[in-house]
């Protein structure tokens, strides 16, 4: 691919170079957790609850234990842990009802999929056979599935000990919302559902543990090896330095592997108990039931505006279905959206209240965007409703409330400081690519033929780059950790380099972008810069990959460490060339004396001198060429953009087809434009998937209906158009690279654009709103209700047929 951007002295940053990690993936030589085997390895299968809520009356493991090849069958009492999976959010001043979440359940089960026993044996098929011979008797209890019903008096309780299904309540507000609404010419109210979805990485989870009598090594398909080491050391009662966690190649995460799971603790405990390596690979059905879900919020929104369309303020009461347990971030995820409740807009007042509810479902937690897609969805849906109410153009309504670019850094009513932005820039660029007039003409012509096309916008900003520790840590919003990132940059005597990062990728392309960043600062080609990550025993302490943080936090740590190496290289070079260090410049990959082009050294020569110091090198220069940096930024970074979606709706069947997508995103300086586009494509499709097809469905008894990809409809290539993308680069002032993040941006932008487009298409039929997912059934029901006056009977029935 051609280079599309070059910035200043950067030779490699800004170029769309091919990925360094790809050769192993395209030849089948990647190493995912299930690709690992060890002599003497045992397999683990898990016996799980088919009941949503029940008391366990008996477990009979005798037949399973006698099954050929079975080495052990364990129930909760056989595998004591120091504690369950902890929730790491302790918000100041707020009480949170955090239930026990032990790796194996005893007493009661609280959702389908709860693990009650494990079977360990030598044969992968044999342990599954044996698990079916574990006889568990249950006494069912009433299941709670509706979060609003759960919060009503008299509801059955998920956790009787708490006396309520309410998990917690957290509120934040800024500005005077009552005054803002009172001063409004128009006040809109709406209930907007953001339904439960799955991460659905194509690689399920898997965990493989070995014990050598002193140290446990856990290889896990995880986004967070360092955080998992920290958490599991507590669960297992082993010092952190005696637990090594490795994330090998990881087949996608999307937040679903941003967690520490009971199964990881189980393989460690069993490996330690039996003294043999133990592997567990999740089935897809286990994944749908017991890898955390996302979203699942109901927003009651009030938005006020003046007659010219300028929004005055928003109030939202959010009911958050957290499921039966807390995974590490469950209770915090809805709140993570709060910094962007104002979107791209200069609202005078924002008032938010989050109420969590227990239900007999598995936990929700971070799924791509984690709180920000939910927040952005209702903000952007309401902007379109406002435009319709005032009969204004939806792009113009947004423009009137945009924070102007000269107002950055901009402090929102909630005290969040947006680092940089130019929202009109991305909107204008998107509109130019779109050709609105052309679209409206085409729309009118097609409508005359009975074809319903619609256009929907989403202009978003998002908060990413988690860090900063002071904002999100114990003294900030209450996460019980710090969120810096680290890097070690080592130049070898050969003149090649290795970068060790605490960020841990699962498809993002760290090997490439991190090499580009280091290469520029070392005067090397990215080809000779290797990036090592995902192993707690190599490199410095890390905080891993999520929240679009790897580049803005991890990349900056690499830049700092590499610049320190460059400084040392300049001192060595200066000593050997008999010049002052300040007179050494790095240009075109060579260290040279300013004004003396014949006096220069390549990094390989300098590295050689660093490791085998010649006599001319002053003794105060330490041997070696390696530096480590920890970086904890002073603020978040706030990427933004403008997306447009064009849909066609078949009014007879309710089927929605996305026919065009235009995305103009601004994630600060581009390190690798090809990878940015790739993140936008994938992110947008994740959002389209939620808007049109995907839904985790539990029935009224708490049974999981969507237990496989047969029932959970992921978007395929056949449903989608190619995308029209462009970028704008507004550098972040927060870091020296000027970068933001882009991993979640597309997802955050996408779902409201789809919904707004469908409503635009169906306006002639009087359809004004439909809750996602916009399956043919729901869309058809909405058209029927509108055109035939058939009142919809509340929510449409949960449909597991998917949208295709």
């Amino acid at each position, binding site marked *: 691919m051609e280079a599309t951007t070059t910035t200043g002295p950067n030779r490699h940053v800004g170029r769309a170079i091919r990925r360094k990690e790809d050769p192993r993936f*395209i*030849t089948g030589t990647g190493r995912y957790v299930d690709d690992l085997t060890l002599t003497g390895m045992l397999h683990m299968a898990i016996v799980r609850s088919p009941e949503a809520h029940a008391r366990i009356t008996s477990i009979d493991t005798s037949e399973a234990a006698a099954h050929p090849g079975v080495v052990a069958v364990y129930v909760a009492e056989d595998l004591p842990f120091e504690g369950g999976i902890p929730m790491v959010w302790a918000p100041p001043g707020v009480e949170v009802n955090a239930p026990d979440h032990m790796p194996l359940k005893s007493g009661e089960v609280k959702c389908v999929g709860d693990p009650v026993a494990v079977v360990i044996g030598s044969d992968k098929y044999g342990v599954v056979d044996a698990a079916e011979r574990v006889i568990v008797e249950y006494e069912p209890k009433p299941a709670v599935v509706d979060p609003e019903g759960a919060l009503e008096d008299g509801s059955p309780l998920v956790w009787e000990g708490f006396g309520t299904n309410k998990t917690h309540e957290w509120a934040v507000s800024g500005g005077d919302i009552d005054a803002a609404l009172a001063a409004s010419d128009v006040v809109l109210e709406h209930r907007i559902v953001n339904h439960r979805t799955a991460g659905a990485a*194509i690689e399920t989870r898997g965990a493989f543990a070995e014990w050598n009598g002193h140290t446990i090594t856990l290889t896990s398909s995880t986004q967070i090896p360092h955080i998992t080491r920290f958490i599991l050391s507590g669960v297992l009662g082993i010092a952190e330095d005696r637990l090594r966690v490795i994330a090998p190649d990881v087949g996608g995460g999307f937040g679903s592997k941003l967690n520490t799971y009971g199964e990881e603790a189980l393989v460690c405990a069993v490996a330690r108990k039996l003294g043999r390596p133990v592997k567990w690979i999740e089935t897809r059905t286990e994944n749908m039931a017991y890898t955390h879900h996302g979203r699942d919020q109901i927003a009651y929104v009030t938005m006020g505006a003046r007659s010219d369309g300028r929004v005055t303020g928003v109030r939202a009461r959010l009911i958050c279905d957290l499921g039966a347990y807390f995974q590490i971030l469950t209770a915090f995820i809805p709140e993570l959206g709060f910094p962007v409740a104002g979107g791209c807009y200069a609202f005078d007042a924002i008032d938010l209240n989050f109420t969590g509810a227990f239900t007999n479902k598995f936990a929700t937690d971070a799924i791509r965007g984690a709180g920000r897609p939910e927040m952005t969805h209702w903000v952007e849906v309401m902007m379109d409703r406002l435009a319709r109410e005032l009969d204004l153009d939806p792009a113009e309504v947004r423009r009137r409330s945009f924070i102007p670019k000269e107002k950055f850094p901009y402090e929102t009513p909630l005290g969040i400081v947006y680092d940089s932005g130019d929202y009109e820039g991305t909107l204008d660029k998107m509109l130019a690519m779109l050709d609105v007039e052309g679209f409206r003409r085409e729309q009118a012509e097609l409508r005359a033929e009975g074809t319903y096309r619609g256009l929907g916008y989403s202009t978003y900003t998002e908060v990413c780059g988690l860090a900063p520790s002071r904002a999100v840590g114990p003294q900030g919003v209450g996460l019980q950790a710090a969120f810096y990132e680290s890097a070690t940059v080592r130049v070898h005597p050969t003149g090649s380099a290795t970068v060790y990062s605490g960020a841990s990728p699962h498809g993002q392309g760290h090997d490439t972008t991190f090499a580009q960043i280091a290469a520029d600062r070392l005067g090397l080609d990215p080809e000779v810069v290797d990036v090592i990550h995902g192993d707690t025993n190599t490199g410095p302490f890390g905080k891993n990959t999520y929240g679009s943080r790897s580049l803005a936090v991890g990349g900056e740590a690499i830049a700092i460490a590499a610049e320190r190496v460059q400084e040392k290289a300049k001192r060595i070079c200066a000593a050997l060339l008999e010049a002052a260090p300040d007179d050494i410049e790095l240009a075109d990959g060579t260290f040279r004396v300013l004004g003396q082009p014949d006096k220069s050294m390549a990094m390989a020569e300098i590295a050689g001198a660093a490791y085998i110091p010649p006599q001319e090198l002053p003794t105060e220069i330490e041997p070696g060429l390696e530096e480590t940096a920890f970086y904890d930024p002073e603020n978040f970074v706030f990427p933004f953009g403008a997306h447009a979606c064009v849909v066609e709706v078949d009014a007879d069947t309710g089927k929605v087809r996305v026919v065009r997508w235009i995305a103009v995103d601004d994630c600060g300086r581009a390190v690798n434009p090809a990878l940015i586009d790739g993140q936008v*494509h*994938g992110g947008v499709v994740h959002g389209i998937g939620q808007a049109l097809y995907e839904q985790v469905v539990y029935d009224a008894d708490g049974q999981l209906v969507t237990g496989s990809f047969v029932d959970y409809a992921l978007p*395929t*290539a056949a449903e*989608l158009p190619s995308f029209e993308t462009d970028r704008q680069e507004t550098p972040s002032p927060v870091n020296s690279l000027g970068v933001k993040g882009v991993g979640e941006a*597309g997802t955050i932008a996408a779902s409201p654009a789809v919904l707004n487009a469908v409503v635009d298409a169906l306006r002639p039929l009087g359809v004004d709103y439909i809750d996602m997912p916009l399956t043919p059934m729901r869309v058809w029901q909405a058209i029927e209700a509108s055109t035939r006056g058939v009142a919809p009977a509340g929510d449409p029935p949960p449909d597991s047929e998917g949208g295709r």
Partner: protein
Amino acid sequence: MSTVNVRVSVNGEAREDAIEPRLLLIHYLRDVVGLTGSHVGCDTSNCGACTVLLDGESAKSCTVLAVQADGAEVTTIEGMSTDGDLHPLQEAFWSEHGLQCGYCTPGMILMAAADLLARNPDPTEDEIRHGLEGNLCRCTGYHNIVKAVQKAAADGGARPAAEREGVA
């Protein structure tokens, strides 16, 4: 546990193995032959991460018994390149950024080779999209996968290397 013998040619190499009759082809390839490039994603033949070629036709190997492959020629991703020469589809997935986490990639490449380019060397975008409908990718949004297949088609990359060499 009773076993049966299967004779299978895997990437041009003749094998005979005693296996459990119920062993799935994907587990035979991964656990018995030791070729881990084919992946299990969904267990229900929806995702196509396990796609291999069975006598040149694409097959989701998580839903095929190894004994059904008795006497067949199997091609996996490991058989797509020879002596370090990448197949045009492999080259194109790399140059067009057609992969991110890489987990679905082997299945995508084999499906594109067998069900698309082998039958239709010059497919339209729509034909590519429908041809890949049975293979799921959660990372790329398919945009660059489609571009990669277009590029491979333009580069004339219709057959796997093993077949082009006449080995398989």
